[in-house]
């Protein structure tokens, strides 16, 4: 069977990963013929020991991953532990990894051969059931609710969708933690204090809401470690609710953080200033701006960067500009004034 990859002209860098996501939906729903069987390998785990069990499952029309799990529990492994509540993409409790990528079991079509594993970055309780607490606690800690700077004007209050467009995207979040499992920075564990994409989306629901007070937003944002996000778009790739997590939630939140908590955004602000001034990233200037003279304490690294041509002292010292300076200033300036 040939796969039809549908890529629309709108697919730019910001929609990275979505081509695979749609690889295509027609193809994903027709990979298996009704009447044939699919092979499902499931990670089983209780206490610390884990193993995989393999099941052969009869395919039925439009079968979802959750249907396969249900069939297995009913017919082969009654003791299989997996969490689900609504079965129709609302509760966000049935996320698992299928062949290495995070999916919502009730939403994703089965594949002819699939390995099902629990989400990463969360403790496993049993089989596919993970402990949601680390995520829930992090969300609650961010206090994702609004505090109005002035009294509520009465129903309906003045508000337009334009003002709510980013928050509205975040409101599609069902808290399934797919992105939390896919995030490589969360994967680093306690090396960073990054809250992770899912808690940021949860926060974005109120922090990107114009009715919320800037002081409240600043207090919450200070707890997120948001500048640890490397904008790799892994979260966006796996989001079953198709939320543009980086472009419509994390980036706008970073912009707010840069404004409200400038001391936490030194790196981002310096980068922006340098690009606006010179039309390119100058790593030497960036290091100096962020680390100052402390950079000299890391001499061996500086020498390595020099030898590999990553930094160029002449360029940095003489602030050499490129032809892109004008457009860069125009673009960044325009964004800044928005």
């Amino acid at each position: 069977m040939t796969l039809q990859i549908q890529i629309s002209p709108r697919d730019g860098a910001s929609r990275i990963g979505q081509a695979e996501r749609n690889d295509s939906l027609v193809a994903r729903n027709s990979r298996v013929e009704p009447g044939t069987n699919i092979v499902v390998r499931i990670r089983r785990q209780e206490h610390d020991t884990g193993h995989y069990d393999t099941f052969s499952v009869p395919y039925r029309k439009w079968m979802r991953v959750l249907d396969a799990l249900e069939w297995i529990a009913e017919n082969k492994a009654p003791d299989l532990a997996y969490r689900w509540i609504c079965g129709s993409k609302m509760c966000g409790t049935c996320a698992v990894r299928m062949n290495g990528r995070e999916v919502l079991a009730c939403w994703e079509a089965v594949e002819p051969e699939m390995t099902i594993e629990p989400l990463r970055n969360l403790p496993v309780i049993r089989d596919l059931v993970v402990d949601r607490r680390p995520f829930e606690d992090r969300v609650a800690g961010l206090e994702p609710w609004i505090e109005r700077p002035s009294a509520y004007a009465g129903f309906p209050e003045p508000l337009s969708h334009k003002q709510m467009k980013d928050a509205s995207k975040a409101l599609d979040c069902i808290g399934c933690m797919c992105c939390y499992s896919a995030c490589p920075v969360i994967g680093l564990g306690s090396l960073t204090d990054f809250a992770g994409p899912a808690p940021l989306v949860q926060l974005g629901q109120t922090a990107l809401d114009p009715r919320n007070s800037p002081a409240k937003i600043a207090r919450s944002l200070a707890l997120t470690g948001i500048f640890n996000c490397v904008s790799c778009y892994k979260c966006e790739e796996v989001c079953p609710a198709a939320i543009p997590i980086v472009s419509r939630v994390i980036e706008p939140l970073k912009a707010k953080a840069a404004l409200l908590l400038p001391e936490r955004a030194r790196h981002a602000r310096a980068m922006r200033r340098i690009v606006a001034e010179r039309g390119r990233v100058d790593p030497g200037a960036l290091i100096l701006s962020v680390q100052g003279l402390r950079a000299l304490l890391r001499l061996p690294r500086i020498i390595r960067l020099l030898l590999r041509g990553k930094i160029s002292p002449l360029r940095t010292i003489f602030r050499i500009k490129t032809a892109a300076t004008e457009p860069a200033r125009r673009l960044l300036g325009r964004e800044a004034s928005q």
Partner: protein
Amino acid sequence: MRTVTADVAIVGGGAAGCYAALSLQKCGFKPLIICKGLVGKSGASLFAGNLVISGRLLGNSETQARNTAEFLIKYHNQFLIDQEWARRCGAWIEQVYYPELEELGLYFRRDDAGNIVTSPGAIRSIAANIQGNSGVPFMDLRRKQVIRAGIPRLEETVATALVRNSAGNIGGVFCLNYMTGEYVVVRARAVVLATGYSDRLHQRSTGTREMSADGLAMAWRAGATLVNMEMQWWHTNDIADPPCWQRMQVYPNPMLGSEKSARMINSAGEEFFNQQNDDPLAFGPYTVQLKALVKQVRAGKARYDGSYYAGFDHCDAKEVETYTTYGKAFRQLGLRFPEQLVETAVTSHYRQGGIDVDPATMRSSIPGLYAAGGVSGHSNGLIGLATYDGKVVADAIAAEFGSLVDRPISDTECETEMRRVEALRNRPDGGISPLKVKQKLRKLMWDKVGVEKNATGLNSALDDLEEIRLDALPSMAIASKSAVANYEWLDALDVVNMVEVCELIIYSSLERKESRGPFIRTDFPAIDNKNWLVANVLKKSGNGMRFEQRPYQLPYFSPGFDLRDNLQVAW
């Protein structure tokens, strides 16, 4: 066994339970929520597609305000409702509910100019963020309110029995945290059951995984009176495949910002329901649709489990998708949207009946026990109504708190319950699995207690049920003895409740000797307002049950006829 104390124990984390807890907390009481799923993420409230506007809100005319009340009384409840309660509820929704939700930050969908987008018609509705998904941000807000208020929650914890105190009142709840295997006894001066409208008792059901009629079964075992258990509502166009999408609806309701809505096509390719033609007032698409489908099934042009289709092929994709989620399911199945239709089927939805309560207080027939939201049998559902119940029950408990005695609960009852629950987990291996028994029961309900019922089928259902009770239940086996995340164990607990409640539903269905709206008896095809415009009250007596009738007052709306063929009546 751990004991926890609260002023009020609330079983259920949906719209009614959360609102009751929040209101009680605000009055200075200490509520506690026991939730079988996750607060705000389980149960029926999540499925609120849109929110109905009541009264004169958002420019509703006098006629539209009256229509909304008529819609609730006639099309939602077929007159089996306290009309004074409906009036109070409508006023509260208009004056308190919407402003309160918006002040908390719920986003009622606007257009770019700042107007709240409404659906057109005789009854209008709005959406929280997006139509089709309003329950998600709505309940997420409630979850965060509960967290913010510091209300204790026992989540993924199933309430298995109500426990009496030494005064003989309901004074606690016995629970099992099925994630850890820990038993928890919650002692409280009052218990509120808020376990929802919809249970997974049929092969196709909108009830979510955890909904297995626990609230009804516990209340009945404790001796509470039930009412109108036969009054079952149906969704007419939920997606037929895949199985786990059985509660995914191709909404027949008017769409936000459009004059159109979904249409339905039979197996011969003929349109048999299009809201704009068949129900132009958009009063009660659900009942009207169901009756239209019954006619198709009788003509051999559809089946209740499929072979008819729904979709938006008469609309523009943009028209549908600007304010609704409706296109997403089609696209996810690889269908071309909106050109292609999807096969649909009937799904059992909300139950109008439930625990018999005084709608002024939500008090049940047993001291100390209250019921709010869907599980209470006084009205059929909308998320606003369930929320109002939460307010009413909180007000009532706050007012009479002083008279609710705080007495020790019965240790014997707790010990007995613990032994019962423990014994289910320790069932020997090798018999029939609880999930299999559940499926068997659901098939029986689907085949014999489905959309069209008659005495022969219902009696035969009782025989089958007896077989399940005598053969399947005792030979139920559990493969894993783990106390941690043991869903098999949970299924075993569920199925005991389900068998009990199915029996009550069947007896109640036999008792109501008429048809009424979505309750269709082929052996009694007419609506009989002379004899049956009454509450079908089910009381426990000794080991058995007896029925009583209680008439409804009709101060504002009445049917205007004594006897008429149900299928010829719009509601």
